[in-house]
């Protein structure tokens, strides 16, 4: 699993650049340095609040079911594209 964005400690100092391959000892060191979270490549972790992409897309359609405003439909398309791109499995 690789780091996808700069990792910062709790003082906002960058302690690692993107691209680093993670292992247990690095994660432990990050924790000691006060790192609260990090972003990794791909979508290897499912958070408790996450649903499968198909379900989220279905809900997205429902939320927009009351509108035909082209600007809002553009927003819906952008969200859809963003999710499809960012949640593609590695």
């Amino acid at each position, binding site marked *: 699993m690789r780091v996808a964005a700069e990792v910062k400690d*709790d003082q906002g100092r960058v302690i690692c650049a993107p691209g680093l391959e993670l292992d247990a000892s690095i994660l432990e060191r990050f924790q000691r340095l006060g790192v*609260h979270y990090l972003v990794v490549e791909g979508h290897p972790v499912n958070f408790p609040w996450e649903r499968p992409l198909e379900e989220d897309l279905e809900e997205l359609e429902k*939320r927009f079911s009351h509108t035909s405003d082209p600007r809002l439909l*553009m927003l819906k398309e952008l969200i859809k594209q*963003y999710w499809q791109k960012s949640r593609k499995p590695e």
Partner: protein
Amino acid sequence: MEAQKREIKRKLRQLQSLPTLPPVVSRLTKLIGDENTTALQIAEVIEKDQVLTSKVLKMVNSAFYGFPKRISTVSSAIVLLGFNVIRTLVLTASIFEMMQSEDLGLWEHSLGVAAASGILAQHLELKNQEEVATAGLLHDLGKVVIRAEFPHFYKQILRLVEQEKLSFLEAEKQILGMYHGEIGEFLVRRWNLPERLVEPIAFHHEVEKARKYKKETAIIHLADIIIRALGYGNGGDPWVPGLQDKAWRWLGLDRKDLEELLPLLDERLLELRFFTLEIQGLGFA
């Protein structure tokens, strides 16, 4: 309906179950009104109350303001966010606490709108970006009041949303003859919050009524839409609210802007999920 509105306003003047304002607020208001007051003097007043200090620092360090560095003292928070934001956070600390425990969905929605408002304000290079984020945080204050003070009406509103498929806003107007923006406005005017916060809270569903802070109001309007569109938290009904032409025109955004903003917002929202878990005393460890 007019009689009902008068009755609601009368009751708002004598709020019972909403947490009362901490006494420290009146001292702060006095201090902030004096132009010779320093950040340090204000910090001293807040820091006398440890619980309040920790609440304020928690909010200041949360992702919706997006400061890269942890802020550990009230005086640096004042320098970074300004008197008005800190005073508002002190003022509303107990209300947020109530939201966290009683309406987590609305709490998450408010945090999300705060984050989106801050990002939009930054993108549009507005001054006082932290105040815009704070207005986002407070924009649905009226809903908290309806729930706490008028539980009977609140249930009727939810029933209308559920059964008639009305938006929360339409249902409020039908049941109360007024809506959460007006109720929020009534309250924040009584608290003497600055107009830059009042207008977005009052008019985020009627942007054309904004006089001095049109862009700020339009930002909260759009931030609300984006957060509802993403399905983050719960704003009272499951639908994306309508976009008002004036708001869209005032902001002058296009497809490319929104495309750029979505990943930034997504990252902030992820941090906010962790923040919410943290304040609930939950975590992944």
